[in-house]
């Protein structure tokens, strides 16, 4: 019997990442307490190496491997490159925070890399089980990361909540997938799509499966009404981990929706479109209205995330390349803004002091006008005010929604974004209009300073010249469909 080895080429980056995770764990053991920079640099090197591999092996062709369970297309490559960049930025931003709080251990790095590997698998999966494995790898790493501060009651509670609810959502998802398997006899994304198209499978069973899958997806996206975990976890987790949870996994979640709903069950668009409309409207409503009442900055940003996920879902509703590429643009813009915003929050933390309340932003303009300016750009961008990238993200999805004939949905969306503008303005108010409560200077490492400045200016520069990123998102979608 001949064993034909599969083509490993499309998964080189993942294999390299897996090797590097082991290297980082071992290196941490050898390096010990004194030389924590060794695993840190190795982690960055792992991300850089993956980026190089993905970049060099980039091709416009779509290739499948592992009996069609794994796919490497343009969308996957572009999303993976974004993920590496985001994770690398997360590591730079959180370095001092994590060091000050004694979380800088080998587990921290390896868990982050495992989570990254999970995202890579999710992005490249073309089989329901591969998708599920990637998702679980990501989620389990995240649960552990949230609980990394064992002495913090809040963090432990958040991790428990996250874990229990996450497991429930995974259960939903698996149940939905089993229904789909029952109806179509396959778990391959492409085969499922073909069978649904041929119309031989039972529509009722498929719809039941679809409902469970959409519920599972909404949980992972933190879209209302499956959003309840987000505020608690965002608030309870150490800010560095919140930054991680809030940024890169959204890119993977985008791929997740694309693979499951669009590529797998694209034929059932009439069924899931209505569900997404409800999810989008509820997310925008709950996110924007509940955010107003928050005094905790991380909780507020959690609700802000929920509302942004509502906008992201709007992009899927139109169910064409125009909408998907708008959604991709939205998620990239969102990740860029979230990175900067949480970096600002961590900037205000000092050793022994957690910036938790919105009022900690008070008088930032007087303490450091440059950081206040960056904060201004980020907040206005989140609110969707031109000429910042957040505006074009909203413009793109609204355009897709109107194109699909849902003008009322566009009107609802802009009205909720008006409500949303209020709480972003409130932060600007604290930064610019109020007197500082403390005059302690804001200290930051050089690399954080540079990265945060670049991050803030990118929000502005990509707002003035958005074509490049829009073109890239369009290319990624059109080349993969």
């Amino acid at each position, binding site marked *: 019997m001949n064993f034909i080895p599969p083509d490993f080429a499309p998964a080189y980056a993942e294999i390299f990442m897996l090797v590097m995770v082991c290297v980082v764990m071992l290196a941490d053991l050898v390096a010990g307490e004194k030389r924590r920079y060794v695993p840190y640099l190795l982690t960055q090197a792992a991300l850089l190496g993956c980026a190089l591999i993905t970049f060099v092996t980039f091709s416009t062709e779509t290739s499948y491997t592992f009996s069609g369970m794994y796919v490497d297309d343009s969308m996957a490559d572009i999303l993976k490159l974004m993920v590496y960049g985001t994770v690398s930025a997360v590591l730079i931003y959180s370095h001092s925070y994590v060091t000050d709080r004694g979380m800088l251990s080998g587990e921290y790095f390896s868990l982050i890399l495992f989570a990254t590997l999970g995202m890579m698998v999710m992005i490249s999966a073309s089989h329901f089980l591969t998708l599920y494995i990637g998702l679980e790898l990501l989620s389990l790493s995240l649960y552990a990361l949230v609980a990394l501060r064992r002495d913090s009651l809040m963090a432990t509670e958040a991790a428990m909540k996250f874990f229990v609810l996450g497991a429930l959502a995974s259960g939903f998802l698996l149940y939905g997938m089993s229904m789909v398997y029952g109806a179509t006899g396959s778990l391959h994304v492409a085969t499922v799509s073909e069978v649904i198209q041929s119309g031989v499978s039972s529509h009722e069973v498929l719809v039941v499966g679809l409902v469970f899958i959409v519920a599972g997806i909404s949980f992972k996206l933190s879209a209302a009404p499956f959003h309840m975990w987000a505020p608690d976890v965002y608030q309870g987790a150490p800010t560095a981990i919140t930054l991680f949870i809030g940024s890169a996994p959204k890119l993977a979640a985008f791929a997740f929706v694309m693979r499951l709903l669009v590529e797998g069950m694209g034929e059932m668009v009439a069924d899931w479109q209505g569900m997404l409309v409800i999810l989008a409207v509820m997310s925008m409503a709950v996110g924007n209205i509940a955010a107003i009442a928050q005094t905790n900055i991380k909780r507020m940003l959690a609700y802000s995330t929920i509302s942004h996920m509502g906008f992201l879902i709007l992009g899927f509703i139109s169910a064409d390349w125009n909408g998907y590429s708008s959604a991709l643009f939205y998620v990239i813009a969102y990740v860029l803004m979230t990175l900067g915003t949480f970096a600002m929050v961590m900037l205000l933390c000092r050793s022994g002091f957690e910036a938790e309340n919105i009022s900690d932003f008070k008088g930032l*303009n007087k303490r450091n*006008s440059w950081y206040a300016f960056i904060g*201004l750009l980020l907040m*206005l961008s989140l609110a969707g*005010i*031109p*000429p910042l990238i957040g*505006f*074009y993200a909203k*413009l*793109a999805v*609204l*355009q897709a929604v*109107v*194109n699909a004939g849902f*003008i009322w949905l*566009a*009107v609802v969306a*802009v*009205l909720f*974004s*008006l409500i949303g*503008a*209020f709480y972003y*303005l*409130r932060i*600007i*108010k604290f930064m*610019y*209009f109020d007197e500082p409560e403390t005059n302690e200077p804001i200290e930051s490492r050089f690399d954080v300073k540079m990265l945060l400045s670049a991050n803030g200016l990118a929000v502005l520069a990509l707002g003035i010249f*958005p*074509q490049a990123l*829009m*073109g890239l998102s*369009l290319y990624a979608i059109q080349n993969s469909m």
Partner: protein
Amino acid sequence: MLFGFPLLSLIIWLPIMVGVAVFATGGDRNAQLARWIAFVGSILGFLVAIPLYTGFDSTASAMQFVEHRAWIERFNINYHLGVDGISMPLILLNCFITPLVVIAGWKVIQERVSQYMGAFLVMSGIVNGVFSSLDAILFYVFWEASLIPMFLIIGIWGGPNRVYAAIKFFLYTLLGSLLMLVAFIYLYQTSGGSFSIEDYHQLPIAFTPQILIFIAFLLAFAVKVPMWPVHTWLPDAHVEAPTGGSVLLAAILLKLGGYGFLRFSMPITPDASEYLAGMMIALSLIAVVYIGLIALMQVDMKKLIAYSSVAHMGFVTLGFFLFNAYGVEGAMVQMISHGFISAAMFLCVGILYDRLHSRQIADYGGVVNKMPVFAAFFMLFAMANAGLPGTSGFVGEFMVIMGAVKVNFWYAFLAATTLIFGAAYTLWMYKRVIFGEVASPAVEALEDISRREFALLAILAIAVLWIGVYPYPITEVMHTTVDNLLIHVSQSKL
């Protein structure tokens, strides 16, 4: 004409770049440097705008100084600029007001000077962008971006209730403009993928969508003008804003709304404009009469001028929806003239406020004894505000009333009451503040205006008198464009 030279880009980006340079001077140690850079930059901004007037062909109805470059190909959004007889005078007005605003803040602003001066310059460039954009998204970007500097100006350097006023200003304006954005996106779909405003002018639209688009535009522009009943943000914003902010708000930002009606509502939805003209005229007349009466009751000078702005802007919207040349041109003259007069009025109040730190009319009295030169200037501007013949305030109002008579006598009658109410609230305030016995020891200690303040008021006085006596240079450039617009509006797009 300077063909090929990107004059409009220069007019937009020069002030913005200078503004960034002013920001870069940093903290208050370099305050004097920041002031001088801002001053020189604003003067340069005005100088580069002059070729716009001298090179303007007033016989042509097409857009001039056109620039067209691809910007966001993904959605066919272009960097498309151009001016006609409607936008050109407004750009000049804006470039003219900016140096005045910089000078007005010279001494008063002692905190975070670079941010203050920079914000005004950036604002000036953004507003030029609004007036010269011929692409709907480019227009929208400039339109919304103009909120940011103003929000900060009110919020940082404003009065005690500044936070409330700043947020109210921002959210009110945002509410209006978001629906306009949806209207643009709808037009993008129906026009087959174009954001060009000139394409929209030619686009046939059915009646119901026209009404809805008109209402979406109306919300955006009515808030900005502001028309009754969405004017309530204006008195708050004016009262709390620093003098420079009030001047900019009244002289320039309110004109954005008026401009929007001429550039968007009327040409894009002519049938809806005709259909709803009665409502628009009614709202305008309510603004003129009712707000005039409210102004009479004010005890705060800035509030009084703010309400008088609403009343005067009522004339502008009234003139537009009369659909005749007198009305539209009169409204345009009124916009320019109101730019000068309201700027001057707010500067006068600012001069008093800098000395006494009160805006209450009751705290003043007998100012003429101590500040005779100031009293003379204030008199001129108060008369202009009341619409005295020979000042610019008269020309626009008279033209609009003439236009109104042609349509309906009673419109003209109600509009003309402003000549009484305007005189009543302005002159009564003037009397209480300036004449009479010296009211208090604080007034006794007042000093007359400095040379800097004299120069400011003198420049505005010349402008007000010039337009009052010889408005031809303004009406001449807009004549062809307005005629063309009226022809366009009279044709149904159904």
